[in-house]
């Protein structure tokens, strides 16, 4: 199964180590591959270094593609993260 959704980065900072870390951590339990796309660059969503190297700043639109058996739950988890603007609980 492949799901695709675009999210606006509304956290105060860009996709820094902490939010990128939260993103990777939230995906860890799922059997999925995740691709994050910004300005034509596609990066592995399970790699903190790749996510940081996107250089995403507040206001950027990130296109996220999730593939795999757990795509549903994984995307749900990402939605939560963006809804909370990456603030820790």
């Amino acid at each position, binding site marked *: 199964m492949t799901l695709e959704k675009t999210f606006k980065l509304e956290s105060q900072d860009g996709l820094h*180590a902490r939010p990128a870390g939260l993103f990777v951590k939230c995906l860890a339990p799922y059997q999925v591959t995740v691709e994050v796309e910004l300005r034509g660059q596609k990066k592995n969503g*399970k790699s903190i*270094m790749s996510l940081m190297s996107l250089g995403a700043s507040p206001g950027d639109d990130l296109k996220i593609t999730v593939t795999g058996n757990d795509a549903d739950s994984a995307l749900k988890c990402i939605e939560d993260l963006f809804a909370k603007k990456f603030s820790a609980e």
Partner: protein
Amino acid sequence: MQVLKGKGSSPGFALAPAFILKNTNLQFSHEQIFDDIHESKRWKAAHSQVVHDLSELQKKYSQKGPQESAEIAEAHLMMAQDPEWISNIESFMGQKHQCEYSVNKASEDFAKMIESLDDPYLRQRAQDIRDVARRILRALDEPNSHEEKITGDHILVAEDLLPSELLSLYSPQLKGLVLQKGNPTSHTTILARTFEIPTILTVNGVMEKVRAHDEIAVSGMSGIVTINPDASEKKNIQDKIQRDLFEKEELKNYISVKSVTRDGVAIEVASNLNSAHDLNFALGKGTEGIGLFRTEFLLMDRSAAPSEEEQYQVYRKVIESVFPHKAIIRTFDIGGDKQVNYLNLPKEENPFLGLRGIRYCLKNIELFRTQIRALLRAAQHGNLGIMIPMVTKVEEVLEFKNLLKKFQIELLNEGKKLEKSPETGIMIEVPSVAMIVDQLASHLDFFSIGTNDLVQYLCAADRMNSNVADLHDAYHPAVLRTLKLISDGVKNTSCWLGMCGEMAAKYDYQPLLLALGFKELSVSPGAVLRTRKQILSLDMESCHKILQKALLADSSESLKAALS
């Protein structure tokens, strides 16, 4: 006994045996063909050791310790487990490269990519990637040697130290840090200050001169390292350590207290900062705002000036962190002794009387424009004061104000919302401007005195020149008279007066500053609490009495006597 001198970067005193951190061999071959199965085994062993060590670190710091350390440890652990990085390393080894080369190459690829970004925060993460890589290289160099356990008090001596290395080696027994290299604005130095470990950098030859278990005395402020101190030097340092300990405990009582004299006059005790990384340290010391943020450090150690966006992010962070207190950000003070390669500053016969501070900026409008636009945008997030350095005449202030207005209009035309205007002020460093503060006041909101330069220009003596350093004298009666002149000039205007130079932290001088009507004293973060304690013990009447006596002094000796 042998005495070495370096750059003091985190204050305090220490006396303990040396623990020497061996250098890692970072040489590896790029061309040779290696057995991929053997290299892959070495990689797996080193990698699992590093992941294990980093998880231990993360556990250690998530339970206690400053927030920064837990965040660094966690980020490093995630990097070490990064699937993309691991797969790149494995694919280099698959092409018969040496494990060391593969780790270095995969890490550099990521580090360089991140270094090319606009976001200054992200750019620094390149160092974290290199840090993780160096951990792996160390583990490859000495397999199975988990970090050596050190017992008892010690002073760590090393060529250089990575932030994560400091985190792993940190314990309450780590009493001091002496590095042969090191950089005052690096994460390692910042962590050392946060942990309050006395630290001395750039101590030439220390790695050859110190042997394991030599006793070492460290004076973190003056940058003096004494190897095997004699009995009297030992006693001297021990006394200082005791006094510091006692004082540190006592000063904790002043962290969340307001700085108010006994008769109710409120003074702002703010901090001088070189970098946004020291913000947390200053906030932990209960700073009431930032009285001087030196932006020229943003220009250093790089190949081109930072973009507007990058500067905006830094300024905004400073302004937001100290809100509702004020953040006074000084525009680029380059020239003089501060050189920046890519700006092509002219070679001058007499740089301290040359193109420095606002003089440079008014001749290089593009650089200035970027900075002022970033500041105007950042001002929306709190209370900003823009301060310009090295002003000598009214015309410079008017030119600056015109530019400020022009850039404001520019931003408004671009649709930016500018609801808050920053305060504007100048540094008083030059005698000429000290004499015309009343004429400047109607154009400004504040004045802040930079004492090192003011004393240098008043006494015509360079304190770095040992032949005349004694003539650079903050207790010269002319300095006090100049402060009085400035104070009189500010009276009956709407401007406030502050001081951000070293004299603001001279405890004997502070009663004079209060009597002269200073509203803000900005000192290094480590001096905030002692300054606050002093203010709480003073009352204006006795300050005025001391000032009357001091104004009669006709030599620095008699001035000092009046203050004691």
